[in-house]
């Protein structure tokens, strides 16, 4: 696609995230390697979204240094725009008509690749939840940014579509710094160059797990299945929020 | 026991109501066995209607208004008079371009909402060889002097001779005045008392008029003391304008509130018919009641 000059690494130094009395993490230090995909796992409510929002500069008192593309847990499609315009939203908001016109063919191609090629003119409320999530994915990929943050991007997709879109994302995001939150250990093993598990309250981040081989990996690989067991054990070991 | 009486003024309290206010303050009404409640409305057209609807016993109104309302079928009768001459006048600025009535040709004249000012003006203009078509009429509501002073209009009809000139003077302007009754309009009673035809209580009305007569006599004899009483009856009344208007108003108050000049009403009714404000002059006996 576009030639990416450099995908920076992201570092977190002594970060603290808290909502009132609830400390989500304190004194967090962490490095996300540039140009690679890091998958974040962790029990529900541990703080994955909060960390992603911190990185995106969306928490009060935070800032971000470089352009990012951010895909939140909700699709956040604008109901008054059709799918094509939703996918091109970033260009619209930056007010760069030229770039927008240049990006339009890519937006169309992306929508086709996520299976919505026939629905370019539909409004979001006419779509199923999974379709909306795919449109949000297309919007994120269309942004063409060196750093991409994604919060459970495939949660509402069926197993087959999910595999296809993992491949798509892996292909299009190759060479970028990607941080992807997922609840599916196999998914993380499939597309993550490295995996990190968040655990505890306030959370800390476990050591980087780096499955062998290039992404996307074959999920049937027995080595991955072994790692999957280890991941689940690591998740289970933390008290989580379920008693 | 005191007879309860509800009396609607024609507008906000002002020196025109001196006899009524002072009578109440000095206990003259009480002396005559009446407990009078004075109510001031914001809209001069509402009081006669409310009396007709039985919401009050008496209302202060104007002769032309009474005659128009009666012609429209309202069951009202005139029972007394407070000011037995016109107060209305046409006023222009002395240093303005208008020196004579004829000078109003092609100019703007402001009027308030009394409903008959237009007819008076028409008659006055005709006395100078003009018609209403020669001027532009603008409803300026109550802001007569303001409209005049800011030169938005060249003259105003509906100005009361005892107020608007003083008002101009207070604002360092001088007015030129044309009295309606000297310029083609038959004379009439400016302020009268009206009651509802079917329910009029003659005995009580006589007491009321007697009290007003007594109060008027006292006022004229003791203007300064009376001003003190009047201006203290409401904080908003103690103004320079009211003080100036006071001395101009007292002589105008009718010494005899029961006086009735039928001819004046017949002449004016004919005038109203001629000006097209009413279709037919109502029979004088239906709306004039002699209380002597």
């Amino acid at each position, binding site marked *: 696609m576009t030639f990416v000059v450099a995908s920076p690494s992201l570092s977190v130094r002594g970060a603290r995230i808290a909502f009132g009395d609830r400390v989500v993490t304190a004194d967090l230090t962490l490095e996300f390697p540039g140009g690679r995909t890091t998958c974040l796992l962790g029990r529900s409510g541990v703080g994955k979204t909060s960390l992603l*929002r911190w990185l*995106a*500069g*969306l928490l009060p008192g935070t800032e971000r240094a470089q*352009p*990012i*593309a*951010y895909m*939140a847990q*909700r699709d*956040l499609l*604008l*109901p*008054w725009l059709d799918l094509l315009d939703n996918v091109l*939203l*970033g260009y*619209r*908001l*930056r*007010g760069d008509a030229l770039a927008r016109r240049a990006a339009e063919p890519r937006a169309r191609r992306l929508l086709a690749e996520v299976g919505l090629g026939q629905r370019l003119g539909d*409004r979001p*409320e006419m779509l199923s939840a999974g379709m909306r999530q795919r449109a949000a994915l297309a919007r994120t990929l269309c*942004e063409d940014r060196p750093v991409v*943050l994604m919060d459970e991007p495939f949660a509402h997709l069926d197993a087959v579509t999910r595999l296809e879109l993992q491949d798509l994302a892996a292909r299009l995001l190759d060479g970028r710094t990607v941080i992807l939150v997922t609840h599916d250990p196999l998914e993380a093993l499939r597309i993550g160059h490295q995996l990190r598990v968040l655990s505890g309250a306030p959370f800390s981040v476990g050591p980087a797990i780096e499955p062998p081989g290039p992404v996307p990996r074959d999920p049937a690989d027995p080595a991955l299945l072994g790692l999957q067991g280890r991941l689940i054990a690591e998740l289970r070991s933390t008290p989580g929020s379920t008693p | 026991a005191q007879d309860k009486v509800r009396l609607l003024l024609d507008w906000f309290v002002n020196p025109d109501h001196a006899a009524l206010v002072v009578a109440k303050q000095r206990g003259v009404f009480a002396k005559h066995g009446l407990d009078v409640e004075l109510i001031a409305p914001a809209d*001069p*057209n509402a009081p006669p*209607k409310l009396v*007709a*609807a039985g919401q009050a016993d008496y209302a202060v109104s104007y002769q032309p*208004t009474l005659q*128009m*309302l009666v*012609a*429209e*079928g*309202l069951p009202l009768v005139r029972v007394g008079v407070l000011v037995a001459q016109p107060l209305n006048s046409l006023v222009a600025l002395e240093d303005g371009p208008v020196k004579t009535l004829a000078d109003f040709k092609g100019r*703007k004249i*402001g009027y308030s*909402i*009394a*409903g*008959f000012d237009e007819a008076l003006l028409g008659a006055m203009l005709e006395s100078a060889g003009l018609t209403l078509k020669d001027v*532009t*009429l*603008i*409803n*300026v*509501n*109550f*802001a007569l002097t*303001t*409209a005049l002073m*800011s030169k*938005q209009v060249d003259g105003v009809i509906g100005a009361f001779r005892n107020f608007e000139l003083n008002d101009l003077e207070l604002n360092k302007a001088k007015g030129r005045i044309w009295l309606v009754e000297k310029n083609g309009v038959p004379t009439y009673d400016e302020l009268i008392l009206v009651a509802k035809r079917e329910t009029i209580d003659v005995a009580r009305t006589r007491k009321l008029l007697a009290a007003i007569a007594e109060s008027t006599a006292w006022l004229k004899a003791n203007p300064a003391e009376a001003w003190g009483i009047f201006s203290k009856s409401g904080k908003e009344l103690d103004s320079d304008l009211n003080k100036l208007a006071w001395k101009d108003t007292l002589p105008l108050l009718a010494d005899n509130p029961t006086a009735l000049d039928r001819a004046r009403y017949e002449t004016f009714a004919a005038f109203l018919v001629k000006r097209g*404000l009413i279709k037919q002059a109502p029979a004088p006996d239906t709306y004039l009641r002699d209380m002597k």
Partner: protein
Amino acid sequence: MRPLITAIGLLLAWEALAWATGVPVYILPPPSRVAVVLVERFDLLMEQGVWTAAEMMLGLALGLILGATLAVVFAASAGWRRWALPLVIVSQAIPVIAIAPLLVLWLGYGMASKVAMAALVIFFPVVSTLYDGLRRTDPGWLDLAQTMDARPHAVLLQIRLPAALPAFASGARIAAAVAPIGAVIGEWVGASAGLGYLMTQSLARGQTPLAFAALFLLCLLGLALYHATDRVARRLVPWQSSQGE
């Protein structure tokens, strides 16, 4: 069809009220009386009605534009908001009688001063609701826009404004409903034509049925304008299904 039924229903209610309460004709004439006047004085009423309709529509148009502009400015700039919002609120407390001489001084006795006065009454609901709407944008969208390095004015015009359209529609509906009284109040400013003027005149002369004929026309104009605005307002937000009717 529906408006017709409604109109007839209203007339019946009015006739019933007049009968049931025994209010005198010169305070509340029954519609039957008013209908007669409506026919007899049709020409006069139409002539004045056209004036008022013009004032209403111009006032509404001006009010909507002014209101929307101010709301957007307030949403865009805290500085403007701090100083101008109190002025806007205060503008609603000023009675026509205090401001009429000023308007006449600046705009003369023509239609401009009346339309300005009408717009002054009409614009406020629009500023208020639209500004409220602009303040209530889904924070998720604003976050998204921030990650996209959106220009502030693009966020305002492309996200906050469309998201606030239902609120604007709400304000526009109120504006349409108060447009008739706005026009009548405008006619208080040095008027010599219009239904409000006609009403004042006829009330002063005891011609209550004529006044109510004018009032009836005014109400019809108001209903028509309200329904037209409601229709347009609903079209503004096609992506939103409303439950009512």
